[in-house]
């Protein structure tokens, strides 16, 4: 009996010494990422995989709605979307009893692109007039309805109303292609797609609230995103629904850490998880 007990104790001790299956830097995780920040997150996932060879992060490019839907359905432990959760998604998560954490990742903006004949600046009210069809001289083009650009404008600017007068294209690249074909169109795209676009002009937008007698216009720039001065600024969130602290949590921490935030600034996003100093 004594012998049996000692053998059992030894087995238990040895089992306790076995390696942990998943840690923040070891294991697998699948990230469903909004196409708005996909190139940045893909590069950061590669960096993470190189830094921690035992970790394997795969990034799936989806639209904002699908990224959140995957989380709601329990198919994803970490999703990245360029918009906050709406009440419908929030209640679905509480029904499923999914406990999730929200981490602010980066500040992003929606850029307004137009041909070179278009004025350099546009007031915020005039932009709204173009979007809601009060001004028909210019036709707005937006990415499809499930994209974060469309949903941001719908919920944050128009209070939940569909932007019926606007033309929709398959994605941001299709929006740019459409504006290139027609001089009377303006395109609203994610900032990442506008950064390297040289065939179209980036329009400066007037402040939402007029502070001085003359209007103040802001160009899309990470400095203005961080200060929330650019009128079409939005936040990109990391939604984390991992039960334990595993690889998904490790990658989320990495994104919000110094390397992730420095890389975000390289990609012209405004860092949202580390302190920022603005220089004129």
């Amino acid at each position, binding site marked *: 009996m004594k012998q049996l007990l000692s053998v059992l104790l030894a087995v238990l001790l040895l089992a306790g010494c076995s390696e942990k299956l998943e840690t923040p830097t070891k294991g697998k995780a699948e990230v469903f990422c909004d196409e708005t920040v996909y190139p940045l997150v893909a590069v950061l996932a590669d960096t993470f995989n190189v830094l921690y060879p035992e970790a394997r992060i795969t990034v799936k490019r989806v639209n904002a709605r699908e990224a959140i839907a995957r989380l709601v359905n329990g198919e994803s432990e970490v999703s990245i979307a360029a918009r906050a959760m709406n009440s419908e998604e929030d209640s679905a998560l509480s029904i499923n009893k999914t406990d999730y954490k929200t981490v602010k990742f980066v500040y992003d903006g929606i850029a307004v692109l137009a041909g070179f004949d278009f*004025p350099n600046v546009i007031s915020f009210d005039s932009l709204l007039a173009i979007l809601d069809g009060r001004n028909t001289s210019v036709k707005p083009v937006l990415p499809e309805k499930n994209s974060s650009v469309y949903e941001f404008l719908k919920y944050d600017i128009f209070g939940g109303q569909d932007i019926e007068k606007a033309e929709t294209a398959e994605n941001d690249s299709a929006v740019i292609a459409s504006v290139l074909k027609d001089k009377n169109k303006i395109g609203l795209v994610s900032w990442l797609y506008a950064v390297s676009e040289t065939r179209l002009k980036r329009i400066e937008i007037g402040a939402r609230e007029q502070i001085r007698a003359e209007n103040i216009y*802001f160009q899309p720039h990470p*400095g*203005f995103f961080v200060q929330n001065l650019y009128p079409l600024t939005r936040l990109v969130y990391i939604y984390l629904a991992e039960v334990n602290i595993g690889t998904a949590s490790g990658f989320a921490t990495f994104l919000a850490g110094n390397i992730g935030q420095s890389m975000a600034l390289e990609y012209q996003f*405004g860092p949202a998880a580390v302190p920022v*100093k*603005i220089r004129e």
Partner: protein
Amino acid sequence: MGGVDLGGGRDHGKKGKKKKKRRIGIHMDMTPMVDIAFLLLTFFMLTTVFRKPQTLEIKLPPGSSSGSVSQTNLLILRIDEEGRLFHSKGIADPVLMDLAELPSYLQDRYKEDPNYIILLKLDRKAKYHYMVDIIDEFNLAKLSRYSVATLADEEVEQLKKIN
């Protein structure tokens, strides 16, 4: 280091009395513990390096937040030396109009976009009452965003050519 004081131990030799319990007094020497505490404190104080707060720096683009006004939102009214009124939108050429038509013109513009910015430009030799009358019309049309300036020499020459 430490010691144990057994205490008592004296025998009084009285019969029938209960024997007193011997008390044990313990003295702890705290010196080595304090030594180690201070040693550790000194060690950590000397070896700790405080991490500098890592902030990212963003440089704002030059010439940002300009105070320029969109040409599509700008309405220019010009009055020449003879009191003739010209209107134009943005960079378009000025068009002659009758002063009596101004109220309806302004109302139409207000309906079009209440955020129009009006620039009223007058010739230096134009009569003062033109400016007063036109500003009154702005107020009646509820167009509150306007500024007043004088005509540039080139504009005076340009207006002379319009009949």
